[in-house]
């Protein structure tokens, strides 16, 4: 039984306040952002960001040092009745990743807002503050030139035909609430050890992600958001059907308890029902993870959203539902018949890799190319599932798990960097067309370098995280004897190289303006061309993290130990489920006054 916490009688482990803070703080920040108005809203979220990063790293350090997961029993009611938040190696690793990327995106959004305000010639604070409680419409500053952060990536060309809107208060106020909600939902998803808590966490994630897509307010973005919302809700209902069947057959919702109940020894539960539950829940989550053929909502949704929203969506939100599938398969994976379904998932993953990359190669819009690249990279997350449930070879399972996690993490960093860089490139080029990117190499070399580094990490060149992920995934798939999967993994890397080369060649081409010196450059005034230092640093930083993630994967266990961090305890060694506490002695009973 894990060590008792300092406060007497509480069954949670020492680190409990850390993980509670990681869930409660972002939600409190979201509520604060709703309560306070815009300037204070962004301040509330920006203030909570460093604290959350600190908490995430502290939780990871604690899990590493003690070697056992942090468990926090909510309200001192133990499973099966109560809920346990359990942060094991996988959970803390993903929380650290979420904290880093979310705070980077927050800084990027703040910098974009400041820049948007600066370009509108108003002091950063002034036009953003409120017109007080009076309902009068805020007087729109005359013909503001470039939209705010979320206004379709700060469109550069004249705002002429767009109605002279007020400072983009709607978009930025909403963005900060949604950012905090996504952050809280993801943290809860990574440490929830209860099937229904996972459902609620994913619903919060979806309801925060859909408005992110709608921030641009343009018809295609709204249509994409509607499709995403309807499919996600259908997926949630399928997931709930799975939860109902699991509860119906086992009477428990806690993952550790379920693993205990279906351990090979006990044969109480009907295996067929559990397998159907697993299939229903997995399909429900596949809709949200946009695995081919359920991918159609992702490209328009992610490409239509403003750059920082797309970065959040592609890097993190998609990983939330994948993580739920991973948890389900780590718990219920060894149900008989699971192996065939796992191979089917791997086959879908392989199709996703090839189809996503091929379509990305054919796109003409830069953001759509990056979005289709997400569809392809999601395929990598499912390729190792057959090895994951290969109960026979535990080393194979850990390799598959570490490969999948590393792929998720390095893709998160690389895709965040690529979407932010793409946003800046498109903002400068004025049009979201790859062939309009000419001259980007000369004008924005560092942003170009960041996009290229992110691409190289996706291709899987050492020392990037992508390389180690491919290395481990290849070992896992070959271990299972699935050569067609191994070759698909490699083909994915080559195709990623192909569509990256296409963008890099377009950026390297001579810009039309450079050729005809006299032609007026349509892009926004010079001030808007070179993105400020902070945004460039953020984009480059994210790309470099993805590129040098490989070192973290190699560093020996006792140091940073990503290898151990990414190891979730194989199912059989789960510590005994925390038995129901004996009803506490006198203190409660006496004080109970009959209502």
């Amino acid at each position: 039984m894990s060590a008792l916490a300092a406060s007497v009688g509480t069954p949670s482990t020492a680190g409990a306040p850390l993980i509670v803070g990681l869930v409660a703080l972002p939600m409190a920040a979201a509520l604060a952002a709703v309560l306070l108005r815009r300037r204070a809203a962004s301040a509330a979220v920006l203030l909570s960001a460093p604290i959350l990063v600190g908490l995430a790293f502290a939780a990871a350090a604690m899990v590493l040092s003690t070697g056992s997961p942090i468990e926090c029993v909510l309200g001192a009611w133990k499973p099966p009745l109560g809920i346990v938040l359990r942060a094991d190696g996988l959970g803390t690793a993903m929380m650290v990743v979420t904290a880093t990327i979310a705070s980077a995106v927050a800084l990027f959004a703040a910098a974009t807002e400041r820049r948007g305000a600066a370009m509108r010639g108003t002091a950063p604070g002034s036009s953003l503050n409120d017109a007080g409680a009076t309902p009068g419409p805020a007087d729109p500053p005359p013909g503001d030139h470039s939209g705010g952060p979320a206004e379709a990536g700060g469109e550069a060309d004249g705002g002429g035909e767009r109605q002279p809107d007020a400072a983009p208060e709607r978009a930025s106020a909403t963005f900060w609430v949604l950012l905090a909600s996504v952050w809280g939902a993801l943290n809860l998803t990574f440490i929830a050890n209860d099937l229904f808590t996972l459902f609620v966490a994913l619903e919060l994630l979806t309801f925060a992600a859909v408005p992110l897509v709608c921030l641009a307010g343009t018809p295609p973005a709204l249509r994409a958001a509607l499709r995403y919302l309807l499919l996600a809700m259908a997926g949630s209902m399928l997931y709930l059907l799975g939860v109902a069947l699991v509860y119906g057959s086992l009477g428990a919702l806690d993952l550790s308890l379920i693993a205990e109940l279906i351990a090979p020894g006990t044969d109480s539960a009907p295996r067929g029902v559990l397998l159907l539950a697993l299939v229903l829940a997995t399909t429900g989550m596949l809709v949200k993870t946009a695995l081919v053929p359920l991918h159609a909502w992702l490209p328009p949704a992610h490409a239509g959203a403003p750059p920082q929203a797309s970065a959040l969506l592609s890097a993190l939100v998609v990983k939330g539902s994948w993580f739920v599938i991973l948890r389900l398969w780590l718990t219920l994976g060894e149900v008989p018949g699971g192996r065939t379904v796992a191979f089917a998932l791997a086959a879908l993953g392989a199709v996703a890799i090839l189809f996503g990359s091929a379509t990305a190669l054919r796109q003409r819009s830069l953001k759509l190319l990056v979005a289709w690249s997400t569809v392809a990279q999601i395929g990598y997350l499912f390729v190792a599932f057959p090895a994951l449930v290969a109960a026979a070879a535990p080393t194979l399972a850990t390799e598959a798990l570490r490969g999948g996690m590393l792929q998720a993490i390095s893709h998160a960093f690389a895709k965040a960097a690529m979407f932010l860089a793409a946003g800046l490139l498109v903002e400068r080029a004025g049009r979201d067309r790859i062939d309009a990117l000419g001259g980007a190499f000369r004008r924005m070399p560092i942003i170009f370098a960041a996009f290229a580094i992110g691409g190289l990490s996706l291709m899987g060149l050492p020392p990037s995280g992508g390389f180690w992920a491919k290395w481990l995934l290849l070992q896992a798939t070959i271990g299972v004897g699935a050569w067609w999967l191994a070759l698909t993994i490699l083909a994915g890397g080559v195709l990623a190289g192909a569509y990256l080369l296409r963008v890099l060649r377009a950026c390297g081409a001579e810009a039309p303006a450079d050729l005809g010196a006299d032609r007026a450059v349509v892009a926004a005034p010079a001030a808007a061309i070179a993105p400020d230092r902070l945004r460039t640093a953020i984009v480059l930083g994210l790309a470099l993290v993805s590129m040098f993630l490989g070192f973290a994967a190699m560093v020996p266990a006792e140091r940073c130990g990503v290898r151990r961090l990414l190891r979730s305890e194989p199912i059989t060694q789960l510590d005994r489920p925390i038995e129901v506490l004996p009803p506490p002695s006198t203190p409660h009973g006496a004080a109970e006054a009959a209502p």
Partner: protein
Amino acid sequence: MTSATLFSLCSAALVGIGLFGLLLHQDPLRRIVALNVLGAGTFLLFGAIARRGAVDGLPSDPVPQAMVITGVVVAFAGSALAVSIVRRLAALDALDGPDGPDGPDAPSSIEPSDDAPRDASARGSGDSDGEVGGKSGAGSTGVDDAPRRGVNGGAFDGRPRRSSIEPDGRASMEGR
């Protein structure tokens, strides 16, 4: 045939009907109705399972009931958000955009609307295609949907929708 099994069969039927309705209809409101039927079916399954878990003191297990209450509220929030998006699209007269209508004739995602290269001078105050990110990049179709109109739901421009091939950046369309 206890009430639990009867209602569980009923819930299975409702799930089937809900899924069928969701995937059959084009009209977003009909899809939301079908989604709610699917939700009702799912929660009815929880109810049947709760009923099976009845104990002498309780007619049905409280834990699934609590889950259903939470689920119903979440499903309602989802429906409200979906309806708001539909209302917004209706206000923009953009309900059935390129990826709205069914069938394979929906233009493929690759060819942009304006193949004809335009030099900068003809782009006027802001060409419909020039809008960054949001519109032209969005929609898995790179295609121009109905020409742009003021965001406050101005009247429909009365011209048949432009096919995706013909460039529509003419100045006359601008400045409604």
